[in-house]
């Protein structure tokens, strides 16, 4: 379970998160929507300790992410994250990209890591591209590879940071299908997205971010179908 308790985060004098609290249960899919700069992505970076927080705390399975004695490298093994800019490692083949962390971080043997990697790449529909370098892939394929790379670590949680925002419109569908597959397998996910229809379809809950706070949260039917706050209504009107 991920417990986010009243976190505050500033970049210099700019306060990005102004007290955000959110609990995500095992097996739950929570979508986070909201305008640019509302702090959605920053929250994800704080969950796996890529960004520090100034106040509050985040517990992942009871472990305080930002406590001084927390082994972040160990914690990150169970939190997969996929970025808007997929960040493929360009000097490694698709297979090597996915095998790397299981080998170097989990200490798996080459055969084991390869077996897992091939499986994950097959899951995301890239079985044909194992020996190819990422530069030869489309954006959608690279993004699916990045998802497979995170999944190869067998994480308990997956965080998605606007994973379709940098893609050509015709490539968005294939990545969303991959996310659908994951949610149907019961993966616990926090999905920061601009794909409102998608959020409505797969989420157990939807959180609307506004000016560094969660402005409205609830079931998709409630937040997207029948929003109560004027800011939520205005946002949905602007994107739909």
């Amino acid at each position, binding site marked *: 379970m991920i417990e986010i308790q009243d976190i505050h985060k500033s970049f210099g004098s700019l306060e990005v998160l102004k007290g955000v609290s959110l609990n995500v249960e095992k097996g739950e899919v929570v979508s986070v929507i909201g305008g640019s700069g509302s702090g959605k992505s920053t929250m994800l970076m704080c969950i*796996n300790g*890529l960004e520090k927080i100034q106040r509050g705390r985040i517990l992942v399975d009871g472990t305080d992410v930002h406590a001084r004695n927390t082994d972040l*490298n*160990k914690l*990150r*093994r169970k*939190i*997969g*994250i996929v*970025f808007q*800019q997929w*960040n493929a*490692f*360009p*000097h490694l083949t698709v297979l090597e990209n996915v095998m*790397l*962390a299981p080998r*170097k*971080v*989990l200490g798996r043997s080459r055969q084991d890591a390869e077996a897992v990697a091939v499986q994950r790449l097959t899951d995301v529909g890239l079985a044909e591209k194992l020996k190819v*370098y*990422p*530069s030869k892939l489309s954006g959608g394929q690279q993004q699916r590879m*990045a998802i497979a*790379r*995170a999944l190869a*670590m067998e994480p308990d949680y997956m965080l998605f940071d606007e994973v379709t925002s940098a893609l050509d419109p015709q490539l968005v569908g294939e990545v969303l299908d991959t996310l659908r597959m994951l949610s149907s397998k019961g993966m616990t996910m926090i999905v920061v997205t601009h794909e409102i229809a998608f959020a409505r379809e797969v989420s157990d809950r939807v959180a609307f971010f506004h000016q560094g706070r969660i402005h409205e949260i609830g079931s998709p039917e409630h937040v997207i179908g029948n929003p109560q706050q004027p800011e939520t209504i205005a946002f949905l009107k602007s994107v739909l």
Partner: protein
Amino acid sequence: MFSYTFHWRAAFQALPQMLAGAVVTLEIAVLSMIIGIVCGIFLALASGSHSKILRGAAAVWIETARNTPALLQIYMAYFGLGSLGIHINSFAALLAGIAFNNAGYLAETFRGGLRGVPETQARAARSLGMTAPQAFRIIVLPQMMRIVFYPLTNQMVWAVLMTSLGVIVGLDNDLTGVTQNLNVLTFRTFEFFTIAAGFYYVIAKIITLSARALGWRLFRY
């Protein structure tokens, strides 16, 4: 007015000796590059670090290496350290001097190369649970090497040519040292130094061409 008579035969007879000298030259250049690359990476990291002491130390090294003659740097390694009671032979002094010089130049090259690797690469690596040193070694370093590969080749050629300065600290078995000895014995200055120049040229050319071939193989992405 031009009464010099060429005597190539004597010069050609000395080819095996000069070839042996060329091998020593290459040896020093290769060693100085290996040391220079390792030190250069640490200097580049140090000059980007948060510690003022590390940044300062790196700056002193880089500034000195780049803005004083290599000749003086080699001199300091031999006579300078010697006067402090640290005596090293001329081979080691030359090697130290060139390695020092290489490291200074390469540190700047590496610093630029590091900037060429997006920060998000290290971030992605860390998010997979890699430690900071792992992320650097496995993800950042190989990509940086691609960026700096050709400047690195230039420095290697430059290192070969710098070895000719060994003669000032009494090195007599590298290409210039051997040539100088032969010159003193025979006074066939023009012939011997022409051949030596030929050797340097060929070594430099081989380095450039093999680097190009290596680059082709290494960086296929």
